[in-house]
Structures are given as structure tokens and as C-alpha cells.
């Protein structure tokens, strides 16, 4: 049994009188993607904010490599190798790819007080890092981040995290605002991160996206883990059903399929 890179053990989170998360226990191993599923307001974002140091658990512990840790700040979490990529990826739209890649750790050349920012090297490293993830369209490090497509921006942010040694990658609905093609890009990059041995926590609303990359699925309903299962243990219908929080979805689909079977493959007219 390998020790998971990151794990939650009996975590609860309340904001004052509001209990948002109840007794959450989850773990992610190296090279594994955990998909967090659940309806709006289920507590997914809150859960990952605990992992990325934005909030702290009210009770319960977070473990890394089997040892309890605490992240008093986002900085503390990122120092421990936890990288969070938000929906819109790069946060500095008016900076160049090279400069934004190296924020805070700018490469320099020269000596003493005359050290200057090494634009060429920054651009080359940044471009290579994204290209290694399969995004070959990015080839000019002077381009502004804001000029990239949503998928490219996500990819840049993920490549940056991996380049700087992230071990845990947290993605909050990275594909929500993307078209089909862009989303495919991001999913491919998630797979590449997984191949490189990162532990990935992936939040999504789209069951198809989850099935494309997930090894392990956890469904949150009103702040509790309602289901926790591995790839192949449940069908797409069952997952969709769980996400909707009841039997309604699956029975609706079954109804439609039944209708189609008895009507030469035609779907029923939409309900009013």
C-alpha cells in the first residue's frame, strides 16, 4: 500500500453557525486523479480551500505523506507543493508569458546591483514547459497571458505549477468555461500531470470530463461524502444520478431510453 500524498481525516468545516463540511475523509495518491463531484453549494470549493490553505479545518486533520500538516496560509500550502489553478488560469492578463511564469522567482543575469531580468531565458523556459505539456501553439514568451485562450491559460498555469515542483494539483472547475476543444486540451494536460506522478484533485460538473481523467470519484452532497468509488465501479448513469442527489436523473434517462426503444429510436417530445 502506498501512502497517499495528501489525505483528509475526519475533517469538518463550519463558518460560524453554518456547518459546510461534515466528517470528510478522502485521500489521493501519486499519479492519481480524484474527481470531486457535486451540485452547486455542496461544499466542493470549500473543501479545496482547506487543501490550499485559504481556510483551516474546524476539526479533523490534513495529512501529507502520512504526517499531519497545517496550512495557515495559501503560501504555506504552496510551499508544501500544493498548487491551485483557478477557473481562469493565469491571473496576470497584462503580463507576458515569460514574466508571469517566473513571478517572484525571476531569473537574472549579470552581477551585483546590475543583475538584470533574463527575459530570453524566462521566455525559453516558460515556452518549453508548456510545450512539453503538448501545447505547441504557445511559442512566443513575449505574448501577453490575456491573449491566450482559456484552455491555453489553464495549461500554462498547470505547466508552471509542475515546473516549480508541485506534487498536488488542485483544479476548481477548470473546464467549466471552456468549449469542447479547449476542454479536451485541459483534460489532456491533467492526464499528463497524472503521468508525471502528481496527485490531482479535479472539480467538475461534467460527468464526461470526470470519466475522462478520474481514477477515483467522490460525490459531495450537502457537505458530506455521499459516495466514494473507483473508476469502473459505477456507470455514467449512476454517477449522474448521484450528482443530482437522487434517483430522478437515472429514472428520467431510463424513461427516455424506454420511449426510444418503443418508438423506433425517436426521443420523446420535451416535457413542459
Amino acid at each position, binding site marked *: 500500500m502506498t501512502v497517499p500524498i495528501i489525505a483528509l481525516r475526519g475533517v469538518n468545516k463550519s463558518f460560524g453557525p453554518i456547518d459546510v463540511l461534515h466528517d470528510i475523509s478522502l485521500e489521493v495518491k501519486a499519479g492519481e486523479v480524484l474527481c470531486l463531484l457535486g451540485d452547486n453549494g455542496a461544499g466542493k470549493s470549500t473543501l479545496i480551500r482547506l487543501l490550499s490553505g485559504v481556510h483551516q479545518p474546524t476539526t479533523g486533520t490534513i495529512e501529507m505523506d502520512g504526517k499531519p500538516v497545517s496550512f495557515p496560509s*495559501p*503560501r504555506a500550502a*504552496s510551499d508544501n507543493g500544493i498548487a491551485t489553478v483557478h477557473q481562469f488560469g493565469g*491571473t*496576470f*492578463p*497584462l*503580463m507576458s508569458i515569460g*514574466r*508571469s511564469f*517566473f*513571478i*517572484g*522567482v*525571476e531569473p*537574472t543575469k549579470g552581477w551585483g546591483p546590475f*543583475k*538584470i*531580468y533574463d527575459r530570453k531565458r524566462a521566455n525559453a523556459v516558460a515556452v518549453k514547459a508548456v510545450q512539453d505539456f503538448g501545447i505547441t501553439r504557445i*511559442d*512566443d514568451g*513575449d*505574448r*501577453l497571458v*490575456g*491573449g491566450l485562450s482559456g484552455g491555453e491559460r489553464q495549461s500554462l498555469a498547470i505547466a508552471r505549477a509542475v515546473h516549480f515542483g508541485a506534487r498536488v494539483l488542485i483544479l476548481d472547475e477548470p473546464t467549466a468555461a471552456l468549449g469542447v476543444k479547449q476542454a479536451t486540451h485541459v483534460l489532456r494536460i491533467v492526464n499528463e500531470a497524472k503521468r508525471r506522478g502528481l496527485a490531482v484533485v479535479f472539480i467538475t460538473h461534467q460527468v464526461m470530463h470526470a470519466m475522462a481523467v478520474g481514477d477515483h470519484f467522490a460525490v459531495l452532497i450537502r457537505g458530506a461524502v455521499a459516495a466514494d468509488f473507483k473508476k469502473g465501479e459505477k456507470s455514467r448513469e449512476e454517477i449522474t444520478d448521484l450528482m443530482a442527489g437522487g434517483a430522478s436523473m437515472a429514472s428520467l434517462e431510463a424513461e427516455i431510453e424506454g420511449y426510444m426503444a418503443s418508438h423506433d429510436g425517436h426521443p420523446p417530445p420535451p416535457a413542459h
Partner: protein
Amino acid sequence: MSSITIGGLLRRPEAGAALGLVAVLIFFAIFGGLTFLKPAGMSSWLNVAANLGVIAIPLGLLMIAGELDISVGAMVPFGAMTVSVISGHYGLPIWVGVAAALGFGVIVGLVNGILVVKTAVPSLIVTLGSLFAVQGIVLGLTVLITKSTSVALTVEGPAKAIFGDFVLGGQMQVMVIWWLALTALYIFFVHFSPFGNWIFAMGGDKVSARNAGIPTDRLTIVLFILSATSAAFVGMCQAILYNSAQVAGGQSFIFNSIIAVVVGGVLLTGGFGSVVGIFFGTITFAIVTQGIYYTDFDRNWSSLIIGVLLLGAVLMNNTFRKMALSYTPKKGARA
């Protein structure tokens, strides 16, 4: 380095400012002749540009970082009055007056910076407060100490030559040399040293910048110290130059430096701009205010030109910024 192209130049933050400068030059060359480009004419607008530019660049850096400092309007008379009271009224050595003027600049900047960082109050409000507070201190203390609202100061020797004299035949202020030297220094720090990146990152997204390890609080405080001290420096030099200081005056620096910065291509919401752009914006502003004297227009029209210029520059800068954002290198251009 990639080769220089027209498109590449237009995508730079100073593109709008450079075009604005050219437009203004052409305008005044047509209506006023080339006198303002001859040495005597040049020093008139260079003097204006220098005094404004020394304040506009640190103010512009604050704006790139997403902050604003309007207390510079009070720091100019504060610097002037400090050196005049200490070295003129009390007759202490000029270097004591210089140190005190700059020292007060550092203190006010520090207070501004700490208040902005520690409270959630926008810097416009914080520095509006310190603008009035410092104006009150200058007026109150000056009248209390000297029983007057203007104080004489006579400086000779090296301090006069360094801070407040005329050079090159007696028309151009030594401030022009300070301005050029400081501009070069700022260009190095903002665009070549690794620290410049931090200012842009802070203006782009402060929280992410902090999470990336940038000491955003310390950097903010340093920038406020820089702008307040620069304004005190300009006031101090003017007092040494003109041999006196008044309690009033200086407020014009607030709007004038913001105009220079915005015409210079700095994005009001932060994250975008350049020192060279602010430099061009400052020159453009100075030429409009001084060039009008070489034309047949009444000087009152210069405000209209500046207003139009400001709006034109903002629109142009928006366009160029969009161009920079949507720029995609041509397919197959990779080498």
C-alpha cells in the same frame, strides 16, 4: 532579440504616449514655429517637465501597482517650507534643511504606505487625508514659527549648485539633470531588474502576487515613500532655486502628474505601463502648457488641448492594449 516591427512597437505601453508627443510637436511646429525646439525655448518646457517628471514617475509606479498618491500636492510645499524654515528662518546649515525635508518625505510616505497596507481604505482616501493633514501642518507650523506665509532662504555653494541652480547658460534648471538621471535609474529598476516584475504583478493581482512570494506590503510602502519623498525633493529644490518658499501651491502637481502618467500609457486600474511612457507623457504635457506661449493662441486654450489630449490618449492606449492582448504570432513564424 526579435526584430523590431511597427506592430511590435505599437503593442508597447508607451506607443500611445509616443504618438501623442509627435502629434503635439507637429501641432506646435505648425502654429508656433520651431522656436520651442531651440535651446531657449526648450528649457522652458524642459524645466516644467523635469519638476513634474520627478514626481510623475514614482506616482506612475504606484498606479501600475494599483495605488494612488495625491498627497504629493502637499509634499511639494512641505519640502520647500521645511528647508526654508530650518536653513532660512533658523539659519541652520543647508544640509540639515535638506535632510529634514527628505526625512519628512520618508515619514509621510511611510505613514501613507502603512495606512494603505494595514487598513482596507483605498489609497485615494488615505492620501486625500494626508494631503489635507500635511497642508494643515505646513500652514499651521509656518505661521506659528515665522508669523508669515512665505519664508526666505539664501543658499550658496555646492548645495545651490546641486539642488537649485541654472545650468547651460542660465536658463535650464539643474532639476532637468536630476530628472534625466532618475528616469534612467527608474528604467533600469522597473524594466531590467527583477523587482520591476513585482510592481506589475502586484497591480495585476495583489493576492496572487503575495501568494507567489512577493512582499507586496513592503513594496507598497516603499513606493509610497518614493512618491512622497520625490515630491518633497522637488519642493525643496524649488525653494533653493527661487530663494523662498510659500505655504500654498503644489496642488497643481496632483492633476498634472496624473495626466502625465495616464497620457503615458499607464492603466488606471494597474498592471500595465512603462517608465518611458510616463517620460513621454510628461514631455507632452510640458510642451502643451509651454508651447502655447509660442503660438498666437491665448494661453487659456492649453487646458482644452490637455483635456482633449488626455481623452485621446486614454482611448488610443486602450486600443493599443487590446492589440497587445489579441496579438498572435503568425503561424509558421516559429524558428
